[in-house]
């Protein structure tokens, strides 16, 4: 089975985020982060699509790059997976520079891209049997077909599969070689809700077996559900990295207090709502404060505000990889 499975026991729950990047007893030298990116820049002609990204992905974690379409997610992943060249910056993935990485290195990573195809004229079983020839370690074909939920379609030709079934086949091929690190580029785009749920279960299983997963998505709920940490990327810049429930901590600290005064709707956004409330209540000792509400932004709102407030003056340093997650 997966080589790193024996290494780290599966841990449940979100608090595994707090785990140290280096499991005890293992020399830090040999257990650097799965992915380390510093100052990554990629330009297409005059357009800068990745603009100074710093990123660390710890071994065994599921990391989501979350951002709107065109934010630079795919390009970043393609560079990390050694499929594209970069213009500047340092990238180390499983200890090697992807730009010059060996085949041995490549066999340790799995990639599920958006535009990869496995040909049309073979059946699912034939496709999986064929690509087994490319890897040093191979998962059993029938087991793989079951794991991605293609059991009934093993003998169906790939060109007769639905879009969702094709994505599952892509995932099967991505994990066939028992990768230590799996890149999933918008894996559930175009899947119906049931298929998405199934896919999430599959990713959770892989992750629990010790596979490091780096996925890109533009679905907030997907990132929140799957990821230990989420990096929000906008216009090629990483604007925030945090566990999903701590995403946008600064924005979340701000509460909106609303009430009605003299028939007018009042609204104040403040990091210290209690102080405001105290004043409001003191001013209305005998009566109710009509229409009084205190709200904090939900995850969705935080995300929308994060991607709306694109920083213009220089990249925001995420601070990850230096031990703090703010």
């Amino acid at each position: 089975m997966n080589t790193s499975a024996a290494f780290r026991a599966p841990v449940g729950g979100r608090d595994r985020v707090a785990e140290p990047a280096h499991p005890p007893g293992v020399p830090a030298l040999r257990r650097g982060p799965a992915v380390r990116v510093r100052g990554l820049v990629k330009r297409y002609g005059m357009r800068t699509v990745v603009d100074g990204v710093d990123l660390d992905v710890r071994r065994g974690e599921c990391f989501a790059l979350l951002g709107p379409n065109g934010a630079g997610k795919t390009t970043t992943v393609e560079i990390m997976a050694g499929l594209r060249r970069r213009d500047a910056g340092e990238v180390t993935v499983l200890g090697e520079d992807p730009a010059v990485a060996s085949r041995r290195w490549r066999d340790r990573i799995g990639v599920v891209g958006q535009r990869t195809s496995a040909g049309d004229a073979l059946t699912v079983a034939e496709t999986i049997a064929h690509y087994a020839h490319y890897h040093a370690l191979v998962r059993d074909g029938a087991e793989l077909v079951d794991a991605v939920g293609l059991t009934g379609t093993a003998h169906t030709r790939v060109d007769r599969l639905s879009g969702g079934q094709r994505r599952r086949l892509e995932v099967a091929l991505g994990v066939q070689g028992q990768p230590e690190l799996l890149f999933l580029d918008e894996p559930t785009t175009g899947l119906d809700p049931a298929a998405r749920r199934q896919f999430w279960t599959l990713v959770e299983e892989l992750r629990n077996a010790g596979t490091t997963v780096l996925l890109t998505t533009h679905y907030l709920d997907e990132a929140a559900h799957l990821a230990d940490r989420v990096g929000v990327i906008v216009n090629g810049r990483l604007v925030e990295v945090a566990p999903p429930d701590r995403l946008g901590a600064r924005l979340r600290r701000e509460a909106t207090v609303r009430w009605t005064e003299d028939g007018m709707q009042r609204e104040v956004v403040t990091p210290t709502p209690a102080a405001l409330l105290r004043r409001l209540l003191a001013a209305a000792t005998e009566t109710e404060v009509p229409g009084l509400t205190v709200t904090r932004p939900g995850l969705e709102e935080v995300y929308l505000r994060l991607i709306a407030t694109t920083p213009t003056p220089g990249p925001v340093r995420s601070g990850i990889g230096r031990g703090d997650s703010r």
Partner: protein
Amino acid sequence: MTAAATDEPVGRRPAPPSAARIGRARVGLELRLFRRDPGQVAFSFAYPVVMLVIFGSIFGEEEVAPGVGSHQYFLAGIAATGVMLTSFQSVGTAIAEERERGDLLRLQTLGTPALAYAIGKAGQVVVATAAQLTLLLGVAALAYDVPLPEDAGRWATFAWVVLLGMLAGTVLGIAVSSFVGSARAAGAGIPGFAVVLQFFSGVFIVFSELPGWMQQVAAVFPLKWMTQGMRSVFLPDDAAAIEPTGTWDHGSTALVLAAWLVAGVLVCVRTFHWRGDDR
């Protein structure tokens, strides 16, 4: 950086399979995909036979030169053309399609050695070409009474001309796929180029009757030499008199085909890419 250099997979992972092993698997895959593409199969096998039938109907029992029947003469050109079609044309157009569909992107993500991919293409070309030539020669011999060579020397010539021709065609097909862009462009451009080359190379028209400048242009490309080599196989010895130099000139044939093969390999090594867009 120093930490990076010492990173090792946890629990030693064996080395990935060699290019030769993946290449062998790819030959099987390519042949299976070829068999499942009725258009490709029909085109590869029927086209040369149809050409033979057309030429037979037009020229009938006419002689191209004393003792050289038109069937015999054109069979040589059609056989050479067949080799070019199953190698250069089919490989060039197929790669453009595979690149566009994302098949090559998958191979790139798997770290497939380009050599393994080339082996797969070459293997498929060898099998398809052998089947096509067998069919063509069978029809020529049985339906048109074209005499097939009886001595081993001529078959040996046949073998090396076909082998060099299809290997050169395969690498040139891979090479050209780096420059044609979209699958649509490849599907129009490569066969178009092939047809023009056939006119220049004496496939449709007796080579010695072509204008001198056309002969000279054709002499740059492999097809002319393959047709000439094939004529040396299927035509009587004294028919060499109608060749430009009055001989079969096997030396030049081998040299030109080998030069294209080597040049094709060099171009492939320098320009082959898995994906169509910017790196």
